[in-house]
């Protein structure tokens, strides 16, 4: 019994999640000490609400990275599909609920994701090149074909969805209130679905397999091309959903202000222990890593770090975080070689 506990501990110590969790807790305590506000109910709600959109993006980025790919186009993809959706609904003067916006955006996201999937899955072009290119194409369509500009009025259904809340947290001391947006449900649903997909379907295990060894996956009988293609379609849909949530919550559709998010999102995923080379990582770690980034981005004023130091702070966190996981990997290798030698002596 004792040995199983120490075994479990040993296994845990080789994983990344506990470390990220530890860093996260330390950061939270630091913010609490500096501001006395971190663990207040309304601040926690604020963080959950700021996390919903990056969280959705991170789930998509996680799937892609697990499969051994990389996607830098999701902000552009999300921007394009949600912008097109919003504009269309405004043009037809749609007065109904948010569901139609979600459906249209999901459909557009699937089409745009299929564009990535076609080139990466079927034509086997490198994912980074393809998504850099598609990112430009998506931006170009927005600028050129849609002649995009900020839409400060959004359809009433989207507006209502964005301002509706599950509950409102009130800070008893300061009296400040924060809304828990309904959008958080979209995030939770996707999180659950993707967790199930990655853990309990051959498709999800196939993504891990492809990320580990594409040749082995092919030989084992996974449909590598189809799997990749479908994954990029899914990721396109998740990103578009994130786009809709963002526009609803912001009450305006800005064509470019999601652009540039990809770096911090990918950093968060890697920070959470997902190997950038693919095949290794858990959704839990990915969420912790992303949460860490979101908290840092949204708490520097609370800590008292001047905003001009924000990027330095985030950058340092990424370097330290990824450094810890790199150290973990090298430590694991050392343990492995010792074990290997031990086995051969026996």
């Amino acid at each position, binding site marked *: 019994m004792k040995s199983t506990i120490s075994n479990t501990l040993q296994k845990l110590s080789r994983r990344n999640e506990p470390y990220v969790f530890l860093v996260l807790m330390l950061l939270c305590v630091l913010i609490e000490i500096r501001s006395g506000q971190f663990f207040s109910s309304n601040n926690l709600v604020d963080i959950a609400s700021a996390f919903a959109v990056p969280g959705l993006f991170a789930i998509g980025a996680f799937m892609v990275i697990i499969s051994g790919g990389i996607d830098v186009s999701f902000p552009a993809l999300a921007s394009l599909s949600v912008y097109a959706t919003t504009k269309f609904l405004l043009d037809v003067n749609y007065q109904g609920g948010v569901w139609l916006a979600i459906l249209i955006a999901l459909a557009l996201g699937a089409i745009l994701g299929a564009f990535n999937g076609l080139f990466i899955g079927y034509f086997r072009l490198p994912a980074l090149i393809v998504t850099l290119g598609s990112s430009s194409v998506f931006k170009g369509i927005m600028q050129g074909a849609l002649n995009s500009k900020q839409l400060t009025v959004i359809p009433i259904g989207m507006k209502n969805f964005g301002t509706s809340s599950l509950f409102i947290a009130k800070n008893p001391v300061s009296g400040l209130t924060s809304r828990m947006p309904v959008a958080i449900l979209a995030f939770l649903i996707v999180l659950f679905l993707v967790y199930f997909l990655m853990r309990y*379907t051959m498709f999800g295990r196939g993504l891990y397999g492809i*990320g*580990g060894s594409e040749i082995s996956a092919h030989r084992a009988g996974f449909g590598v091309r189809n799997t990749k293609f479908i994954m990029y379609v899914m990721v396109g849909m998740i990103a578009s959903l994130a786009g809709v949530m963002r526009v609803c919550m912001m009450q305006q559709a800005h064509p470019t202000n999601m652009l540039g998010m990809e770096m911090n999102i990918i950093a968060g995923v890697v920070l959470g222990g997902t190997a950038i080379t693919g095949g290794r990582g858990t959704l839990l770690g990915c969420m912790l890593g992303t949460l860490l980034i979101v908290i840092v981005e949204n708490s520097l004023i609370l800590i008292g770090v001047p905003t001009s130091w924000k990027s330095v702070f985030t950058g340092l966190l990424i370097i330290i975080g990824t450094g810890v996981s790199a150290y973990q990997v090298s430590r*694991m290798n050392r343990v492995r070689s010792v074990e290997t030698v031990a086995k*051969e002596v026996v």
Partner: protein
Amino acid sequence: MAEGLLRAVDIYKSFVGVQALKKVSFEINPGEIHCLAGENGSGKSTLIKVISGVYSPDSGYMEFGGKRYEKITPIDAIQSGIQVIYQDFSIFPNLTVMENLAFNSELADRRKIVNWKRMRKIATDAIAKINFKVDLDAMVGTLTVAEKQMIAISRALMFNTKLIIMDEPTTALTKREVRNLFNIILKLKERGIAILFVSHKLNEVFEISEKFTILRSGELVATGSTADLDSEKFSFFMTGREFQKKTFVPLNVSKEPIFQAKGIGMKSAFHDVSFDLRRGEIIGITGLLDSGRTELALSLFGIRPIDHGAVLVNGEEVKIINPQVAMQHKIGYVPEDRLSEGLFLTQSIADNIVISEIDSLANKIGILDHKRRSEEIERWVRELAISTPNPDNACQTLSGGNQQRVVLAKWLALNLDILILNGPTVGVDIGSKHDIHGILQKLAEEGLALLIISDDLPEVLENCSRILVMKSGSIVADLDAAKSDEKTILSYMM
């Protein structure tokens, strides 16, 4: 005689103008252990891929259990009971043993949803078949090569397997692991499973297989019973060349040792190692993988410096604390894994040769003298007979034997006194192996002092004047090669 399990008849296959297989026929019976041998580029892999349905032949046909196929798909092959274990074992290093074992059958059953309980049962059953004990939740990447191979074998046996094709299965295994593998192969044979064993290692062919087939340049050169084969014939079939075994006789041995180790040791690797090395001598150091032989080699070259004893070069004590010091004292080291340690595979052959002497090729103001550079390169390509149309080609275009020659050239260009070679012919085909041995003997005759670390016993017996046997970190025997044999050495090693 029982009905043949598989027959491939008059197979032709070519790729963009290159004839990979010319009228090759091949036959294997149930429970037969068959060795398919041939040098690099002889068409072995192509034949395997034709049999397993990856390639379809240009002409010729195949028969499985008497049923004739003009063309088969990989799925046909699997359904006919053929399983291929590739050199990389087709594993997922990032996933658990359980998943690695269960994926194939889950996919074959077209399952969509993962049932972890069922997967565990599949995996447990699979490893039980060959009595293989392993933690099903371990990450496959953390296992030894032999364990990965066992996983591949267990997985191959999950289907109604009649023939297992193993591509160079012993390449990265230790002696003990090879023995274990052979035991398993024999057990499979008892169950009527045929094994097609692809190898170019002579001793393995004799030890395990009953039948052999040798290909050369895409043609069948010999097939038959292993009992009728001897090592001369084998070498001839493989290469088309006649080799005379040339046992090394030291000629110009210097009186004074050029290199002396006095009671050297390194914590938890080896201890109290002493020996003298003279010019013109070749000393062999052998032992099992854990005997400390590799660590000793690394220490002598300063990669992992010693912490006990003294090293003398030309009678003077030298502290070899890093490879630069070793090189200053004209000591060179050819590593075991030339692919990762000794060569820049993507760089040109020429650059690889001159890399270590690059400083001496520069003129006074530090600019590379291109004329001298090309002279050097030409000289070594010629002297070591590196077969390449153009030394500017990338090193990875060469065969294993030729790559090893490039590593040699790189060191010889430095005018060394002492050369340490770790596993000089690992993964090298017979012809090249023979040539490399010739080069080493010639170098010794020219006055170089050589130290060969190898567990290939015929190699050390043939090429060394003295053999030091290591066990658990110390030298347990110092043998005269001419008066020794494999049995004696093995008795000290084990």
